[in-house]
Every structure is written in C-alpha cells, then in structure tokens.
C-alpha cells in the first residue's frame, strides 16, 4: 500500500473530493428514483443530455463567428451554456417520455427507451457532423474528465471548478430535500394519498425530475456519464439494504457515496500497479477513475447484499441454520420427555442410534445437537444413553405443553383426522412462545388432556 500513499498528491485529493461531491449530489435524488422504481431514468437522462450540450456549443460557436461574442467571452460562457443546453434536453427527455406514455398509451420503460436513444443518436450525429471542433469527445462524455479537474480552477482560487459546481448542486439538493422532506416522502410512498391531502404530487414529481436532471448535468462534465449512472442507483440501493427508514437510507447513501469515491480512486491507482507487479503488465498503464468508481459502487452493493446484518444472504443462511439447530435440539428434548412419560418405570433415556432413527437426522448433526444440549446442562449421559436433567425436563415439558395445546387448538378449529394432528403440531410447537401458550390455554379453557388423551403438562411458568 505504501506505494500509493507516497504518490498521493493534492491532485488525488481533489479528484476524490470532486467525485465524492458529485456522488453525494446524485445519491439524494437517486434514492427517490429508486423508491419510485424509476432507476433507469439516470441512464436515460445521462444519454439524453448530449444533444443539448452539443447544440449549446454550436450556438456559442455561431455567435462567436458572427461577432456577437469575443473568443474570451465564449470561454466564459461555455460552461453555463453547456449546463443550460444539457438541462433543457434532460427535462425534454422526461417530458417527452411522459407525453408518449399519456398520448401513445405506451409502457413507461418503452417510452423512455424511445426518447433517450433517439436523443442520444441526435447528439452523436450533431457531434460527428458539425461539432468536430467542439472538444466534446463522446468518449470524454462517457468516462468524464476526473483526472483533469485540477486543470480547470474556479476563478482565481485554487479550487477546481468541478468541486464548486458539484458542491453547489449537493447543497441545492440537500436544501430542497430538507424543505420538502415530508411532501417528497409522502408523494414517493403514496401518490394518491398525497394528492388527496392537497399536495401537488405532479409538481413534486417534476421537481424531483428537474433535480435529477440538473444534478446529472452538473456531475456530467467532471465525472462522466458512467459514474453518474452508477451513483444514482448503487449507493441508494446499498443503503436500502442497511436501513429501514428513509432518513437512514438517505444518510447511508451519502456515506456509501463518499466511500465509493475514495475507494474507487484508490483502486484506480492500485490496480495498474498490482497488475504490473503480479501480471507483468506495463508499468505506465492506467485505468479510468470514473469506471473504477462505478465498479467499486457495484462491489459495495454486492458485499452488502451478502453481508448486510439485516437482509444479507449470509445472515439469512446463518439464521436458517440456527433455526434448524434449535428445532433439532427441541425435538430431542421432546423425545426424551415422551419416553419418560411413556415408560415411567423403565430405564430412562435413549441412545444415539434410536434418537437418530426417531428424528431421522444425520448422526453428525445429532451428535452436535447432543453436545450443545449437554453444554447447556439440559441433558447428561446416563440411563440408556442420555437423560434429561431437571432443567432440561422443565424446558421439555414446556415444549410438550405447546405441542399438545396446539393439537387441541387445531382439533377445535380444523376438520383434521386425529392421527395427523401430531405432525402438524410438530411443525408449529417450536414457534409457540410463553405468551401464545398462555393465550392458547385460555382460549381452550385450561385443558388437561389433548385430543389423543395425553396429559397436557402444566405451565412451567407458574
């Protein structure tokens, strides 16, 4: 790692700051696009802005040639003009898609597809035909210009212009969100309810669209469309896997955005070096920072998907395994208790083989469950193999009580043959906690015998 840190310079810091600001600015409207199921809007908008930018440039060029603008004036006007042009075609894309949906009865995604591909093609055509000298290289639009942000400072300060623009956009987005937080939240969650409460849902939607468009455009020139697309969806989606509340998702998305920017740049620096060292690639190679950030954003999402403490795949698997273990342990207790009940005079307990056969479980699973129960002090070696300790008996009695109460409950409400009640209760008994147990007993008027005639053990709580 030392190699990278020693090479880290002010340029790198500014790159990370620019990307982080752009990413955060995108993450805010992106969260709402995600919740409104319009995530592909980012991809569409970032393509659709191209013709507006080219046209703006062409207009400026024509104005300069006609003598209305000095070359210096043109340089000064260039960025605002591009911004306005891009914003106009972005909003046009949204409106046209809406119009096609409404008047052509088209499906939303198809309408969007028609509009943004057409606009992008128009932009490409304009570039290739008239704007050869425009310095709008389609490649540059794609990959952005992150590596060069420092070369374009804002006024006399040493701060890159891109930092100022994206920072301002972030501030605007954050302010709008804070001002209209509850309105936007409600409109996103339930448009009809919002409307019935007198909130102009359509206008809120338009505001979100404009916000997204402006953010995309602002971020576009510095970080490229690829990063914009990624940042509109990946950080909010990652945060959505981590938090259950809208505020949490928004803050999480901001944090993920910053981490992505930093991690992406680090990876972009590290990858060529690593490839050089381990794969023998040429030393001077480099990779696109913006592209790398998009990869890192996706990677973070994947990692979260696997490892999220709430909804992660790993967590799900672990929980399922734990549940299976608990059920097996409880089943063992149940079997031992019933044996004692059935043959009070015989030598108590059961050996591993008969337990494995009764519960139809693999020997190694049984062995693990038995050792866990022993550790807990619920069973000890003795009798025919293992026997219940007093604590174990208490737990087992509780379980059997749940089982038999459930059988009685089912028998009361279902038309089920008696012989099948047992298997049904077997599945449910593990999920009847003390509270439900009590409620069951109450509804059944404290029964003493189950439908098969076996005694329902008294509650252990009393």
């Amino acid at each position, binding site marked *: 790692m030392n190699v990278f840190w020693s090479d880290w310079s002010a340029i790198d810091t500014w790159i990370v700051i620019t990307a982080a600001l752009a990413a955060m600015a995108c993450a805010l409207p992106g969260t709402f696009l995600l919740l409104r*199921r*319009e*995530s*592909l809007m*980012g*991809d569409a908008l970032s*393509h659709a802005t191209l013709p507006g930018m080219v046209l703006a440039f062409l207009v400026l060029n024509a104005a300069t040639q006609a003598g209305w603008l000095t070359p210096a004036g043109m340089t000064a006007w260039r960025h605002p003009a591009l911004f306005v042009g891009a914003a106009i075609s972005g909003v046009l894309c949204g409106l046209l898609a809406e119009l096609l949906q409404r*008047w*052509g*009865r*088209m*499906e939303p*995604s*198809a*309408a969007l*597809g*028609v509009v943004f*591909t*057409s606009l*992008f*093609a*128009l932009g*490409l*055509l304009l570039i*290739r*035909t008239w704007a050869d000298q425009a310095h709008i290289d*389609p*490649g540059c639009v*794609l*990959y952005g210009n992150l590596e060069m942000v420092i070369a374009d400072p804002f006024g006399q300060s040493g701060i890159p212009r891109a930092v100022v623009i994206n920072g301002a956009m972030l501030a605007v987005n954050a302010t709008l969100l804070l001002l209209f937080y509850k309105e936007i939240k409600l409109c996103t969650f339930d448009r009809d309810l919002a409307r019935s409460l007198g909130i102009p849902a359509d206008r809120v939607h338009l505001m979100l669209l404009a916000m997204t468009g402006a953010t995309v455009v602002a971020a576009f020139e510095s970080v490229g469309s*690829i990063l914009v*697309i*990624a940042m509109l*969806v*990946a950080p909010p*989606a990652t945060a*959505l*896997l981590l938090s259950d509340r809208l505020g949490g998702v928004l803050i999480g998305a901001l944090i993920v955005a910053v981490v992505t920017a930093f991690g992406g740049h680090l990876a*972009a620096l590290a*990858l*060529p070096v690593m*490839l050089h060292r381990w794969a023998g*690639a*040429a030393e*001077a*190679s*480099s*990779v*696109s920072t913006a*592209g*790398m950030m*998009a*990869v890192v*954003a*996706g*990677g973070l*999402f*994947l990692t979260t*998907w696997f490892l999220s403490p709430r*909804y992660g795949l790993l967590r799900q698997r672990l929980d399922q395994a734990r549940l299976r273990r608990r059920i097996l342990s409880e089943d063992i207790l149940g079997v031992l208790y019933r044996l004692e009940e059935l043959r009070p005079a015989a030598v108590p307990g059961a050996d591993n083989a008969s337990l494995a056969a009764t519960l139809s479980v693999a020997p190694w699973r049984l062995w693990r469950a038995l050792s866990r129960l022993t550790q807990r002090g619920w069973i000890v070696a003795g009798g025919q193999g293992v026997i219940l300790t007093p604590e174990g008996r208490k737990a087992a009695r509780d379980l059997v009580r749940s089982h038999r109460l459930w059988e009685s409950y089912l028998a009361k409400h279902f038309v089920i043959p008696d012989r099948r009640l047992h298997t049904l209760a077997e599945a449910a008994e593990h999920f009847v906690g003390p509270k439900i147990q009590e409620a069951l007993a109450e509804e059944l008027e404290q029964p003493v015998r189950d439908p098969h005639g076996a005694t329902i053990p008294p509650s252990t709580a009393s």
Partner: protein
Amino acid sequence: MDPFLFLESLTLAETEWARVLLLRDYNTRIVLCGTMILGVASGVVGALMLLRKRALVADVASHAALPGIGAAYLIMEAIRPDSGRWLPGLLLGATVSASCGLLFAQGMRHIRRIKEDAALAITLSLFFGMGVVLLTWIQSLPTGHAAGLNEFIFGKAAALLASDITGIAIAAVIAVSVVALLRKEFCLLCFDAEYAHAGGWPVTGLDLLLTALVIVITVVGMQSVGLLLVVALMVLPPTAARFWTDRFDPLVWFSGGFGGAAAALGVLLSALVPKFAAGAVIVLSGTFLFALSFLFGSQRGLWWRYRAMSAAQRQIAIDDLLRACYEILEPQLGSIEELTEKPLTQAALLETHRWSPKRLRPLLHRAELADLLRRDSQGNWRLTADGRRAAIQAVRYHRLCELYLIHYADVPLLGADRTADAFEHSLRPEILEQLEAMLEAQSPRFSVPANPHAATETVARTPRPEAVS
C-alpha cells in the same frame, strides 16, 4: 444563396445521388445489406421484448457486454500477441459477459427490497464500469491499440465488411427462425405467463431463450451501430409498429420491417451526406418512422384519434342541440309533424341546456350549415325536415339509454338524465337493438319512447337528494 449556384450544385450532386441510390457503390451495398438484416432481426426480437414488458433489457445487455470484449481481448493477446481483435473471440466474450450481467440482474430478484428496475440499473452500471476500466487500461498499454474495441461503443456501420455480414446474417437467421418456430409459445408467454405456466409451458426456459436472442442480436449489432444504438433498434421499431396493428403476428413482422426500413433509410442518407455517421442516422431514421407512426399510425395514431374524438364531440353537441329543440317544442305539439312549424327562440335554448351564448352561437351556425335548422323572418329558429328527422333520432336514442339505465343499471332516476348524456353516444348498436325491442312495449307517444321523467313525475319529486340530506 444564389439560385443558380444552388441549381448547379443539384446537378452536380445528381450523379452522386444516382450512384448511391442505384447502389453502384460496393461499400454501400455491403453496409446496406448488413444493417438491414440486423434491423429486421432486432425489430422482430424487440417486438417480443416490448410485449414481455422488458423493453430496456437490451440496454442492460449491451452495456454488460463491454467487459467481456475487454477481457476477451486481453486473454487473446495473452495467448498470442496481436490476435486480440479476432472478432469471433470478441463476440464470444461479449456474449458471455452480457449473459452474466442478465443472470446477475435475475439473481437480484431474490432481494425483496430491490425492484426489477433497480436490479437492471445496478447491473448496467457495474458491468459498464468494469468495461470502461478494462478498455481504458487496454488503451493505456503500450502494446494495446484499443481502436478496434471502441467501435463496440460507438459503432462502425460505415465500415462494415463482407465478413461481418456473415456473422450478422447467421445471428439474424437464428433469431428470426426461432421466433417463427415458437411464435405461439412466445405469444402465450407475453400475454399471460401465469396461464402458460399452469398449462405446463416452461416459462423460465422461454424467457431465457428470449433473453438469449436479445443478447445475440445485441452483441452482433454493437459492432455495426454501437452499444446504445442497437438498443434503439430494439425499441423503436416495435413501438412504432404498435401504432399500426392490434394483432400479434403483424406486430412482430411490421416491427422487423420497420427495423429494416430504418436501417436502409439511414444507410442511404449517410451515404448521401458524407459527414453523417451511419449509426446515428439509422437510429434517427427509426425515430422518424416512430414519430410518423405515433402521429398517423392506423390503430392508435394521435391524428386519427384526435380526428375521431373531435368529430364525436361535434356530433354530440349537435345531437344535444337538436334534442333541446325537441324538448322545448314537445309540450306544444299536437303531432310529430308539427315539429318543423314551431319557432324556437335563442333564449329558450339557452335556458334548457347549460350552454353559454358563446358556445351556442357557433353551434347554431353549424346546424344551419348542415341544413338542420333555419332562421325564419322574425329571427327565430326552426327545424328543417332533415333537422326534424335527426332530432327525433337523437331524442329516441337518448330516452332509450335513459330507460336502459333506469331499468338495468341500478342508476337512480334523478341521475339518469346526466348519465345518459354521456352514455348514449358510446352505446353499441347491438345493445341498442336489444333495447329498442325490449322497450317497444312502453307505448311511445310518437315514434320516440315516452319521457321516463314524465311517467314517474310524482315518484321523482319526493326523494330529492338535497331534501333528504
């Protein structure tokens, strides 16, 4: 511009026009052939994707193909230097990675919180990011000339070779014949996947097959028109075709035709205008066809629907006017023939219907032009013979509907009048016939059914809603 100079340029250009349009140029022929085949195939496959409501899956597939191209290049370079741009290898790489991308998006369905659009967008950005990283890295390598790879992003339609066409043709033939063979299976899948599943059709398998077709077309299309524009070729033709037909088979084949037409138009235009990039012009031709269909398509075209709607509105307004005339005159009539003899004042008309004077005047004018009403010497209005017939018709229709609503639709009587206004103009002839037969027994006063309001006057008066509430 000097008109003479302009004419001169035209004659000069004429030879160029002829050269292009008669396809004398070998290169134009090749490009035309290749892109047209591609256009047809993508139109056909795109139609199915549109009907399956997955129009933008091609977008994701094309972006997801990018890292595969880079990786394939690197692998081939590693195996044998300078073999990195071997096209079949690159296409294989693209196919593999596009498939991985879509499977990845599919896998995300298991997360309940991530909806389909988000899954697609995440896949797109992740794979596209990887592609960009790989391509920029290759570009920065001293040995790497990624020029050939960038074509996959922006296309090189104008530089298609005869050898490329073979690939396109094979892919197209496969795609079109699969669709032709499985036409009814795909139709069922797109219309009602659940029913197809219940009927034992392998829905997942069919979906996978369809996705595979999309990937194949996307991958071969990328090198000719570029990454994004191939998406356009899958979206534009079917959406355009939807405005021309209400049937499944014509939609699919129209869509193929539109794809081919867009490609042909685009290639010819770009051959005529040297600076026009073929890929972009092809898509814009598609856009043009779409716009044309959207406006003038025979099934849902905006123009026709607008025309039909305004004609219907005009008819409704005239009917309402004539009915008002009839209803004003009705109490004074001894027989139906007297309709034409009684005068009508504008004030009376304004009173019966909620017209504003501004709306009534042009309406009267139109009725006069249509020879339904005429002005007498005192400036009052009178029905003409044609007007009488039309008025009787309108009133009869209206009252039939009212009776229908009263008897069959559980609409309370006081509301019947207003509902019937909107209803009668959209009533189907077959229902009307039934009604007329059913209500013949109502002993019409003249040749129109009696006014239901008059018959039940006493009932109608007592339960006035405002009195109750």
